[in-house]
């Protein structure tokens, strides 16, 4: 056994021992409780006949998948209700909202036989999985290891699919199908869809053509045509960005730099405050000089020698100060992120701390 695997074994053993010990004392370890609510919705009269066929296709999947504790009740939801009798004009389902352990305890105290607030196994398992993933990613800081590789493979697969799904339901369906087949989208997905304008339809047909050209690559011949949509995208991007950058960066920033080098600050009595005036003037001088020197650094067709060289050197100093300040300012946000993960481990998972009084410590 190598030294490294020994280290891993010892670390793992200590960790599991601590975890078991933690589970024995206090209120135990992370669990998630959910509260059930029954939702019954009336189908609009007109829709009952039209949609009667469609929901049944979805019926078997209409249970709340992650809360299998109540799967048996959930199985008889929407379509069961709407297909059981043809006169049914309502559909119903159950929703589960996460509640704090405090609420669970209160409900149990009031009525030990209550079934409204229950332990959610899927979410509790999810919580433990999330904790495992958090630790697996942190383990990368020590060395690459199988746990990290599992987490990495999983996050790649899941997130790629996630963005694909988002692209389909949030972009393709409302934008493209919404413009080209509004009837279908209206009846299946979004009854509130506004009828598309002609221009919108044309642009979406155009988009579809570009998309098909892109996919042409998958065919054995004629893949070169996919260069056309790419060229269109690159060209249009270039055109758009030239305008927006010149407007908001070049012109606006240059205009903001036209400051007087000498300022007189007057206080409440109307007298000039020499000290403040001096500081304000120095600030403006430094600012204007800085902008010009930094710009000198960016000159390409002039060697950095002589006056330009001197200015460029001062410019680099300014840039370094800028970078140092940004670095220092960003640290706080980064530490906040780590603190959030640590809080997740200590609070949600290990129940070591309870800053929000969710468990009434």
């Amino acid at each position, binding site marked *: 056994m190598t030294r490294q695997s020994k280290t891993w074994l010892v670390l793992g053993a200590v960790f599991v021992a601590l975890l078991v010990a933690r589970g024995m004392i206090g209120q135990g370890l992370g669990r998630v409780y959910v509260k059930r609510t029954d939702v019954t919705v*009336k189908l609009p009269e007109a*829709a009952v006949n039209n949609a009667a066929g469609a929901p049944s296709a*979805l019926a078997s*999947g209409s249970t709340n*998948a*992650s809360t299998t504790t109540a799967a048996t009740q959930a199985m008889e939801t929407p379509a069961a209700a709407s297909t059981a009798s043809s006169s049914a004009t309502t*559909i119903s389902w159950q929703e589960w909202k996460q509640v704090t352990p405090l609420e669970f305890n209160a409900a149990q105290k009031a009525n030990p036989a209550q079934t409204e607030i229950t332990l959610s196994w899927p979410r509790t398992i*999810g919580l433990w999985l*999330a904790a495992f993933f958090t630790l697996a*990613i*942190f383990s990368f800081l020590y060395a690459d290891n199988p746990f990290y590789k599992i987490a*990495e*493979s999983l*996050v790649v*697969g*899941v997130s790629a*699919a*996630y*963005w*694909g*799904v*988002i692209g389909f*339901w949030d*972009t*393709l369906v409302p934008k493209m199908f919404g413009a080209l087949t509004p009837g279908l989208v*209206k009846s299946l*997905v*979004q009854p509130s869809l506004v009828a598309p304008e002609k221009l919108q339809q044309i*642009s979406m047909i155009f988009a579809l053509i*570009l*998309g098909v050209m*892109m996919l042409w690559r998958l065919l054995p011949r004629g893949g070169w045509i996919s260069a056309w949509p790419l*060229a*269109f*995208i*690159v*060209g249009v991007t*270039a055109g*758009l960005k*030239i*305008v927006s*950058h*010149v407007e908001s*960066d070049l012109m606006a*920033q*240059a205009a903001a*730099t036209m400051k007087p080098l000498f300022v007189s600050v007057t206080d409440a009595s109307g007298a000039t405050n020499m000290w403040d005036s001096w500081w304000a003037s120095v*600030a403006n001088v*430094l600012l204007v000089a*800085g902008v010009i020197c*930094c*710009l000198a650094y960016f000159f390409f067709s002039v060697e950095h020698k002589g006056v330009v060289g001197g200015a460029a050197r001062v*410019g680099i*100093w*300014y840039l370094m100060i*800028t*970078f*140092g300040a940004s670095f220092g300012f960003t640290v706080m946000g*980064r530490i906040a992120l*780590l603190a959030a993960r640590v809080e997740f481990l200590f609070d949600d998972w290990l129940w070591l701390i309870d800053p929000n009084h969710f468990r009434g410590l």
Partner: protein
Amino acid sequence: MKRIIPMWIAIIGGFAMMLSSFVPLAESAGEMFADVFNVVAAIAFVLGAGSLAKQHLEKLSRRDAGWGYSIITLGSFLITLFIGLGKIGIHPNEQFPQAPYSGSNEMEGSAFGWIYEYMITPLTSTMFALLAFFVASAAFRAFRAKNTEAILLLVTAFIVLLGRTFAGVVLTGWFPDWASGLRLENLSIYVMQVFNTAGNRAIMIGIALGVAATGLRILFGIDRSWLGGGDA
């Protein structure tokens, strides 16, 4: 020919878009392009998915080192895609019960929502949190007074870091009022107001010119390397 047509497509598209920014009637052209682009990108996901599937299937069939992890990637990819595209376990939106797919994939308690909350969020946000460790190691290694530039970088970062804590306030808080400008917290504000503004402004002006020149190189057909043209 295979390079000339795309080049002209880019040139015409680019100039048309540039001019549209100045014509009130065509002001929405930019937004419309954003829509078109998003749709094309969403369709092109098929290509990405194909590449992803191909690399992992090849790894599997070759039994490369770590092929087991490819199973995890492929499996999780397909399962998530299936659940998400089919809106498995999503009940309709309460406002539109007649539309079977009106429910949102992100709703609490759905399978897709579960994947997001208990897999994607912890994995990606922990990855993000690794930054806290890396800023520390980068600061230890890189912030050393090797030359004037490094000293400026280091001293500014030091002042700002210290000024962001209670310790910095305690350290220089006793400075008399007339020297209050030298208190760490005020010093870091001063650095932000003067030096940071100057530096960022110059960077932005430079970037604007750089973007303009890059765009013009494309629109004038001078730079065709992006076209797969290599040298013009």
